[in-house]
């Protein structure tokens, strides 16, 4: 029988893997996907706590977070299309308009 803690460990691992991806990669696509990975790590701990406390609040929050992630992906990807159209590059180092 698996308890609460193993689920929380998996959730923390996913979150930190996502965080490592966000700070170490330069490809914008992989940056976006790492953010999704962090969101999913947090979702897993919400679901595990909902099961542990035997109520629905955690599941409802995850439901709302998934809707939010859909909105984030739509906006993020359209911004990314604009960036690629203007800079012809996927490298975050090339988007330096604000520090020149």
């Amino acid at each position, binding site marked *: 029988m698996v308890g609460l803690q193993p689920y929380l460990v998996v959730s923390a691992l996913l979150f930190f893997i996502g965080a490592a991806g966000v700070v170490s*990669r330069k490809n914008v*696509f992989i940056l*976006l996907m790492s953010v999704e990975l962090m969101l999913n790590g947090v979702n897993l701990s919400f679901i595990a706590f909902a099961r542990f406390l035997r109520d629905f609040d955690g599941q409802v929050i995850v439901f*709302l977070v998934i809707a939010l992630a*859909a909105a984030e992906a739509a906006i993020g990807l*359209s911004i990314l299309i604009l960036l690629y159209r203007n800079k012809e590059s996927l490298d975050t180092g090339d988007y330096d308009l604000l520090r020149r």
Partner: protein
Amino acid sequence: MLETVLFYLLSIAAVTGGLMTITRRHPLSAALWLVVSFLSLAGLYALLAAQLVAIVQVLVYAGAILALVVFVIMLLNVREADLPADEGFLGNLALALVGIVPVAFVVIRSILALPGSAFLPVAPDYGFIQPFGMHLFQDWLFPFEMVSILLTVAVVGAVVLAKRRI
């Protein structure tokens, strides 16, 4: 017993998918590894008796959001030469780990120090769509409406941003 085996299989798949996602060079293979991770997470949600959320995870996350990501990658027609060189990736990753590993260590140690964590049995309809909907539309009605406004804003914003001429 079966639950334990499934838990370990699914969580290894989820963590491996995450690791592969952040280390792939081409975004398309990263996206496909992310699908692996999300589908295993749906399995973990089902193990936690959250049937509806598991289905939504497969339909919306692995289905819609990642299909959108793959679609945009294909649409931009990214060639091997257009990809960032990422020559300092391993160095950056090592630097990132210097910051992240201590935090992760503290978090995981404090998780393992939590007292009494066995799951108690739940009602037979826990996680089903009817009690979930009752809860969502009674106690969480305002956040739900906020999310619908947010989605409308996102749709309008995406069209405004991506279209050349409106």
